[in-house]
């Protein structure tokens, strides 16, 4: 026997102190209270035949003391948490990784694979040896420990109760790394993975070295039928923002054709229905042009006959359309017909023209266009578009004057140059700009940067290094597109371009206003605190649906955005019976036969109760007198 709790010396010390105290109290207890009576022969007559002998009375007292000392000894032993058999050095240390990815919500195993995994995990808990310790971790896109490395089965069961599925893929590599870190330096390390095994090959091929850690795999799942929405995107038409276009990709992972009923909901109302006939293993991208009826949110849902689809989580997808509101634009220009014409193209713009030197109008603007000049930056001016940005007073300076140039390099992913072919633009004269380190060079000639985007004190800007009228840009269709793209860039930021995020990734969500702290509301209603840096909040969402980001102290409405699973690998829910990692196969979990845990302290406390009851019955019920 050994002690897993307090060491023997501490127990002896505690018992000595408590025992000494008990003896002192016992001696005090022996001094009975003297009570005079009027005629003791009457008491003798009453008690005479019941009174025990002097010897027995003494023995009874000693028995009382012995019972009290026995109680203390049992309690001290219980504090020591004595264990029978092998000592703790030979105990197993187990990390139980439970797959909580979206595929674990498949209902091929009633009620779900995750429930089955929880049931299997409970079996492992009941099969833990008295010295074994276990850590339970939830494995999805992240790894979340649900307990400490403990032998307390109750704590492990509580941790297991907190197991929740997410709408993400499972990152097995991250899970294994976590488990190996947790087991480093521990005796008899072991990792048990409970999963349906739907891991991409890229993951299973490259796993961290296990260094003698035993790996076991417990498969879950029985069927593979599933049809999923694997991509969903929406965009407004630039010149008619009341209409939009939707791209939807549906993947039939089954080996048989599937008939899919499609529904689309705009702002919660049904706006489109359709029927898709998919061949076996067919992955089809479908465009739905020129749709109307939705203003902000769009949701797609597919439905299949029973038995053809066991995973419902990937049957819905969410997208958010750019907010359709009038954009307030302040134009400070001595007069620019091309600019005025370009701004007339968009009926959702509310343009205010101001001459240079005139006082700026009151109110907040989304965008301010500065035509060859600069003004002191103010947050209420919104995003700043500099045309032929001056060398001083603007966000960046000039490197040098250049002539006869064009766009030789540009950022194709930048929304500012969306639908534009910059290579055709010819410029007579301008300036090569001098961007700062964090600025984004959107376009440059061989002579230097000529189109730069960035932020100064949190306020975004786009600077053009030449006067558009000194180029053929104003004669091209690219000119109004550039102006409108830039306005959209300021107003919508990335949410206008990315109609939804992917769950499991770390999102950089543009904040609706300046601030350092904000709240993110999840689709389920939970709210989490987030930090905002450089106008963006970093957040790793794990649930599909619509989110909101609000900034503390900002009077602007919260930013809404959507998130989807959109994972081809995760939608292929065919379970695997064996797990091969790095060329070796994970074994079966052994040594977890259900058995009683040999933790003696519970029995010791039971003995304390029994002895206490015996002492109470003997000395307090007064059956002896």
């Amino acid at each position, binding site marked *: 026997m050994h002690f897993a709790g307090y060491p023997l010396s501490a127990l002896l010390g505690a018992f000595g102190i408590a025992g000494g105290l008990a003896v002192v109290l016992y001696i*005090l*207890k022996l*001094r*009975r*209270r*003297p*009570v*005079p*009576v*009027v*005629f*003791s*022969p*009457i*008491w*003798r*007559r*009453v*008690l005479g035949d019941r*009174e025990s002998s002097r010897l027995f*009375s003494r023995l009874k007292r000693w028995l009382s003391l012995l019972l009290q000392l026995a109680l203390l000894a049992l309690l001290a032993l219980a504090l020591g948490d004595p264990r029978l058999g092998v000592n703790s050095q030979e105990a197993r240390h187990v990390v139980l990784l439970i797959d909580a990815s979206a595929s674990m919500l498949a209902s091929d195993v009633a009620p779900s694979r995750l429930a089955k995994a929880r049931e299997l995990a409970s079996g492992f808990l009941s099969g833990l040896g008295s010295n074994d310790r276990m850590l339970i971790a939830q494995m999805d896109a992240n790894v979340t420990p649900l307990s400490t490395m403990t032998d307390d089965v109750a704590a492990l069961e509580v941790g297991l109760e907190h197991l929740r599925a997410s709408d993400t893929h499972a990152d097995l590599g991250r899970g294994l790394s976590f488990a190996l870190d947790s087991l480093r330096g521990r005796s008899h390390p072991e990792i048990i993975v409970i999963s349906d095994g739907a891991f991409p090959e890229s993951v299973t091929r490259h796993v961290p070295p296990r260094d003698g850690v035993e790996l076991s795999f417990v498969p879950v799942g029985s069927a593979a039928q599933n049809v999923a929405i694997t991509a969903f995107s929406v965009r407004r038409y630039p010149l008619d923002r009341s209409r939009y276009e939707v791209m939807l990709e549906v993947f039939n992972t089954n080996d048989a054709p599937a008939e899919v009923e499609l529904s689309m909901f705009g702002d919660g109302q049904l706006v489109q229905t359709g029927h898709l006939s998919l061949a076996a293993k067919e992955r089809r991208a479908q465009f739905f042009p020129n749709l109307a009826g939705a203003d902000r949110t769009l949701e797609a849902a597919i439905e299949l006959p029973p038995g053809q689809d066991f995973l419902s989580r990937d049957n819905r997808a969410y997208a958010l359309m750019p907010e359709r509101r009038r954009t307030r634009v302040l134009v400070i220009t001595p007069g620019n017909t091309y600019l005025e014409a370009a701004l007339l193209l968009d009926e959702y713009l509310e343009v205010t023209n101001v001459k240079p030197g005139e006082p700026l109008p009151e109110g907040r603007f989304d965008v301010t266009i500065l035509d060859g000049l600069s003004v002191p930056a103010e947050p209420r001016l919104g995003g700043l578009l500099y045309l032929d940005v001056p060398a001083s007073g603007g966000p960046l300076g000039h490197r040098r004057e250049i002539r006869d140039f064009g766009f030789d390099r540009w950022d194709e992913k930048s929304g500012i140059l969306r639908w534009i072919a910059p290579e055709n633009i010819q410029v007579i004269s301008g300036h090569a700009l001098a961007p700062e380190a964090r600025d984004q060079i959107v376009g440059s000639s061989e002579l230097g940067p000529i189109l730069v985007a960035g932020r100064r004190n949190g306020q975004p800007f786009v600077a053009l290094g030449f006067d558009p009228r000194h180029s053929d840009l104003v004669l091209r269709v690219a000119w109004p597109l550039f102006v409108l793209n830039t306005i959209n860039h300021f107003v919508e930021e990335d949410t206008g371009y990315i109609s939804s995020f992917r769950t499991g990734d770390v999102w950089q969500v543009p904040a609706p206003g300046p601030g350092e702290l904000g709240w993110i509301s999840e689709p389920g209603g939970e709210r989490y605190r987030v930090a905002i840096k450089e106008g963006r909040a970093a957040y790793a969402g794990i649930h599909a649906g619509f989110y909101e980001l609000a900034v503390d102290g900002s009077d602007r409405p919260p930013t809404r955005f959507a998130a989807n699973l959109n994972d081809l690998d995760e939608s292929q829910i065919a379970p695997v019976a064996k797990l091969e990692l790095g060329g070796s196969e994970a074994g079966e979990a052994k040594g977890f036969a259900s058995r009683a845990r040999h933790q003696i302290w519970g029995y010791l406390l039971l003995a304390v109760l029994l002895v206490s009851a015996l002492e109470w019955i003997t000395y307090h019920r*007064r059956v*002896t*007198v």
Partner: protein
Amino acid sequence: MLSALKRALGGTGRGLGPRREAGKARAPSPVLFDDEFQRKLETLALVSRRVFAGRMRAERRSKKQGSGVEFADHRAYVPGDDFRFVDWNVYQRFGRLLVRLYEEEEDLSIYLIVDSSASMAFGSPSKFDQARRLCAALAYVGLANLDRVTVVAASDHAGALMPATRGKNRIFKVFHFLQQLEASGVTDLSTSLKTFVAQHKRRGLAILLSDLYDPTGFESGINVLRYNKFEPYVLHMVEPASSFAGQEGIVGDINVYDCETGEEREVTVTEQVLRNVRAAHKEYDAAIQRFCTRSHVPYFAAPADQPFDELVLGLLRRGGVLY
């Protein structure tokens, strides 16, 4: 907590004295015989006269035959008898010499024997105080009727004695004597009454005021009076009911000791034990009454918590004590 520890270390229980005071009574109440008490005595004396009007005179015939005027009996003449008492009429008719006997008139001797053992002071209200009040009241009635009243204190020996006296104006002497008495010592009625009998040749009414908690047995004490031709009357000072009620708080492991002998006994008291003790006390009182009835000894129970004037009046109405 502190009081519990104090009790554990030998402190006093509620209303009960420590063990070292065993066999010693409390100090007598300084206002035992106050003006109110004396007024009640006057009232009792008047009431007693009214109750026994017509058959109560200021004297009492003794059974002693002698030179009185009331014929009592005849007996055979023996040489030496006074010729004046020879009944010549009988001699004339029957030829036998018989002497006429007359009842001798003499004043009654009343002995008030107050138990002054420590047990008399036990409980509240005190039996000892009640006994002294009763004694004073009876003495007053006796003195008022010109009887010879003697007051004796008895415990394990014949203690203080107030010699025989008569006359109502001597009641203050009685008061003073009773006031000086202290309840102490062990009850031993047999020994103390033997001493009393030896000291008092003149027989009379012996009123015993005692709780009769005699470890040697209450019967022997009463029998001493009976066998020596005294007329015993037992005024049993009964333990007040409140004394038992107070004992409900002594449940637990305690060390009981006799208030007279100091005899100790470690007991564990439960409610059942207390009930048994109370029942044993009642049985003890009943045994006393049974014995007195069998022995033709008048018995009167005098609870310590009952007003003394009610008790005296009850005694007088019942009769047999004084008249």
